[in-house]
């Protein structure tokens, strides 16, 4: 009886602590200048997302070195806001130009652009703003409500489990996000190998410096992020030629009230797409590029008039936009809990997390719980800003989508170089950025997973340290990786994912 009372008291104390953390996060996000950074980030994200081919990742990576002087939670809120805004912004050119501003808005073109052709662009844009906002709010609410359960789960992870999660995440990303497992593993391992340059975390010996003092500090992963997401992206953008600019004047016609009526007519599509987005976002490596197609396909499958999809039905826009926005909340769960991002933008956020001295994993749900809560609260509140800005910006979307990206490319490159130099005041970071800009563009061109490389570059030191610590704990015995049910499950999952192509091949032979 006594022990039950103690348990109840402990649970009540934990709940009070979590509620305290949540309300503290609300007050932090609503305080000045945090709210200002949130709104600025959202506006910048919408602006960059609306420029076809640019996307929020570029804005996030260029802003990353500029967040040095900011507090960790403010920096993370700013970057999350750019991410969130960019996902909504991507729908603008998808609807008015038939060119998705970002990959997660690709499915929006299917019905969004036909609505514009039918003279209902304003309705489609309003639907996009409302669906994005509602999707984001539902997803953030789900995750906030789940945090107490997540805490108990994440706190089960010990040193060997963290190492295994890093390897499993890398393997998952290679098969879920893009293409061949061999390509993904090679890219991820190359990213990890680059992190071994400089002082080793074990024994503090220098590795691969070839006598150059400048290499002692290693190759900074932020410079890698800048090279892959700013330089490589700008080269890719340039290779797209004039595809990114609207060549005709855009007429924004239609009614916002019709959009609202359409939205309340389809609560099931809205709810289902939000759940799909949140769930797929939480799968390491999947992200909004996948979720918008899955939600669109589900809306089409369950519709009474599937033949009308693709001709400008509101459900198509609702499904795609709700799900891609809902992915943000979901994708932060594996990013914060295990250090495994669901997308390029989430990988940059992970980089920011480490840059500001935080370690993804159990700490984010114990010592840094207030930061975790403030991120989700900022998503929750940010979606209301998206709704307001989205509806107010509708008359001006034509201007956004007709921006000449040539005016931004050299400035983004200069900002990227300055950001890399500012990391350690070391030219090695600029050379590394340049090298990865070229490698990154080639990787994209030949469908190698850039996210796998980034994950390797970010998680390399963490994986090495946890591997070494695990082997130290076990006196060098590899049996530590099957020593508990959780560890054994993770090891088994890692092997299954690794041998999945072989298993698939064998099964297909027997069929």
């Amino acid at each position, binding site marked *: 009886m006594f022990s039950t009372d103690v348990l109840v008291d402990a649970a009540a104390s934990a709940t009070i602590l979590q509620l305290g953390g949540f309300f503290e996060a609300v007050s932090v996000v609503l305080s000045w200048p945090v709210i200002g950074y949130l709104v600025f980030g959202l506006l910048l994200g919408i602006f960059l997302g609306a420029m076809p081919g640019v996307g929020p990742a570029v804005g996030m990576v260029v802003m990353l070195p500029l967040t040095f002087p900011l507090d960790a939670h403010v920096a993370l809120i700013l970057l999350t806001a750019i991410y969130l805004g960019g996902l909504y912004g991507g729908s603008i050119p998808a609807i008015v130009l038939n060119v998705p501003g970002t990959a997660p808005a690709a499915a929006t073109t299917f019905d969004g652009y036909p609505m514009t052709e039918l003279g209902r662009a304003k309705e489609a844009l309003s639907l996009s703003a409302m669906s994005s906002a509602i999707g984001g709010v539902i997803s953030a609410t789900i995750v906030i409500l789940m945090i107490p359960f997540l805490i108990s789960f994440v706190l089960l992870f010990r040193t060997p489990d963290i190492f295994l999660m890093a390897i499993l995440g890398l393997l998952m990303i290679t098969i879920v996000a893009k293409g061949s497992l061999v390509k993904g593993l090679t890219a991820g*391992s190359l990213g990890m190998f680059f992190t071994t340059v400089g002082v080793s975390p074990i024994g503090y010996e220098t590795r691969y410096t070839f006598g150059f003092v400048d290499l002692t500090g290693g190759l900074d992963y932020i410079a890698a992020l800048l090279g892959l997401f700013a330089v490589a992206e700008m080269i890719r953008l340039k290779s797209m030629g004039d595809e990114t600019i609207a060549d005709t004047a855009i007429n924004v016609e239609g009614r916002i009230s019709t959009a609202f009526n359409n939205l309340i007519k389809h609560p099931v599509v809205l709810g289902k797409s939000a759940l799909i987005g949140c769930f797929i976002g939480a799968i390491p490596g*999947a992200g909004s590029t*996948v979720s918008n197609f899955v939600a669109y396909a589900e809306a089409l499958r369950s519709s009474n008039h599937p033949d009308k999809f693709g001709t400008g039905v509101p459900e198509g826009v609702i499904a795609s936009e709700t799900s891609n926005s809902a992915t943000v909340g979901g994708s932060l769960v594996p990013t914060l809990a295990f250090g495994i991002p669901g997308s390029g933008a989430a990988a940059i956020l992970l980089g920011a997390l480490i840059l500001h001295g935080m370690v993804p994993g159990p700490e984010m749900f114990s010592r840094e719980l207030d930061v975790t809560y403030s991120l989700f609260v900022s998503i929750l509140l940010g979606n209301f800003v998206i709704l307001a800005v989205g509806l107010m910006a509708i008359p001006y979307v034509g201007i956004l989508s007709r921006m000449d990206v040539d005016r931004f490319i*050299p400035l983004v490159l200069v900002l990227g170089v300055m950001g890399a130099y500012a990391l350690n005041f070391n030219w090695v970071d600029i050379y590394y950025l*340049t090298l990865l800009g070229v490698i990154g563009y080639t990787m994209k061109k030949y469908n190698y997973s850039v996210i796998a490389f980034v994950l390797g570059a970010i998680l390399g030191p963490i994986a*090495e340290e946890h591997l070494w610590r695990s082997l130290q704990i076990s006196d060098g015995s590899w049996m530590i990786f099957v020593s508990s049910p959780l560890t054994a499950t993770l090891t088994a999952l890692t092997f299954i994912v690794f041998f999945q192509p072989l298993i*698939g091949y064998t099964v297909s*032979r027997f069929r």
Partner: protein
Amino acid sequence: MSFTFSGESAFFPRVTSGVVLVGATLLLLRNRLPEPLYTIVNKDERLIGNEDTDEDELAASELEEDIGSGRTDSHIVLALMFVSFIIVARFIGLLFASPLFVLAYALWTEQPKHVLIIMVVIGALIPYLFMIYINLPVMDGILTEALF
């Protein structure tokens, strides 16, 4: 030359570089691999899209199309301009090289005069602000260090 570190420090780089070597070799020789290795290496696992599409062949054919249409030039020129910018910056410092790079790019893409001026001003302001606010040594270059 630099391989003087202990076995403990060497383990992780050995594993990662080993995976890169094996993976790169498999990809390089993939058209000569025996079954089932050929299928496993060439198979693209994805949630959406055609699993059997050879992405590299697609990329290669796109590249050929680009060369035929002359579309490849612009991003190669940009990459070369960027590398030149870094080399020039190493000599004269980022403070002077940045506006020059932006100017060269704006002239190449035939921006209107007023846009060009705004771009160059911003291109000069970015390194200047970095210098003012975080004391970034953007004036340092091999030549400028000798001069100033």
